[in-house]
């Protein structure tokens, strides 16, 4: 299961994590976000224990959304040691995410 993150816990869950973290910025009304939601869930299962998979609802986390300059969703940010290591915007096939995630392990 992906962890829900927001303005309150983003620092603790994402920035301070000792594992790579991917954060899926999404919103309930966003069709393309629904298309990648199952992919994000799959990744959270397949990489359990190796990667932290988080979801951030842009409508309820305005500070984080502005801080990371999220203008289009879905945007998936890849964090390593608290810093952005990669980024994927839009509904794309699962392999695009895997190819960006594997080098961070």
């Amino acid at each position, binding site marked *: 299961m992906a962890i829900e993150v927001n303005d309150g816990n983003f620092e603790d869950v994402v920035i301070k994590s000792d594992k790579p973290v991917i954060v899926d910025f999404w919103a309930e009304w*966003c069709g393309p976000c629904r*298309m990648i939601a199952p992919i994000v869930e799959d990744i959270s299962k397949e990489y359990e224990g190796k990667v932290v998979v988080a979801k951030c609802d842009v409508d309820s986390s305005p500070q984080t959304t502005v801080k990371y300059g999220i203008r*289009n969703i879905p945007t998936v940010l890849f964090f390593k040691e608290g810093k952005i290591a990669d980024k994927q915007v839009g509904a794309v096939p699962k392999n695009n995410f895997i190819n960006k995630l594997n080098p961070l392990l």
Partner: protein
Amino acid sequence: MTVCVFAASSSRVNSGYGAAAAGLGSLLAKAGIDVVFGGGGIGLMKKLADAVLENGGRITGVIPSFMKEEGWGHHGVNETITTRDMSERKRRMFEMADAIIALPGGMGTLEELTEAITLKQLSLFDGPIIILNTLGYYNSLLDFIDHMIDNNFLRAEHKGIWEVVSTPEEVLTALSRKDRGNEEWRKIAKI
């Protein structure tokens, strides 16, 4: 290209609506665009279908069996697909359509139009949705949509899902437009 046209079954409406439905049917036929519609032999549906056929076009009716049994179907169309019920009718029409055009109509037309918009909002349909606002028929609906946006029940960006035009000629222009941003609607939403 196949377009799905939703339109009234009522025949009691102002003749201006019928003229626009016929005008659209004629233009679609001449442009070589195939038409799918609700299969009715009454109202604006009949005006549309007759004009398509008179101008050598191709039109397929999708009609639930109970309506066919009632004798509401159009008998001259190139093909009739009979469905079990109203839901299957809509699903079949959406599956066949590259674009949706809504003419003036009653509750049936309204729910078909709003389902098309909802499907596109959810990325389950990605073609153009064109509202033919003959004689300003849909003005109060468009005002209500603004009211939805003003009250945050709908996002202003979603107004880009459909296009409103006033004449059948403008429908053809809207259909031929390349930069519809369909790809973007499917893959990205702006916040």
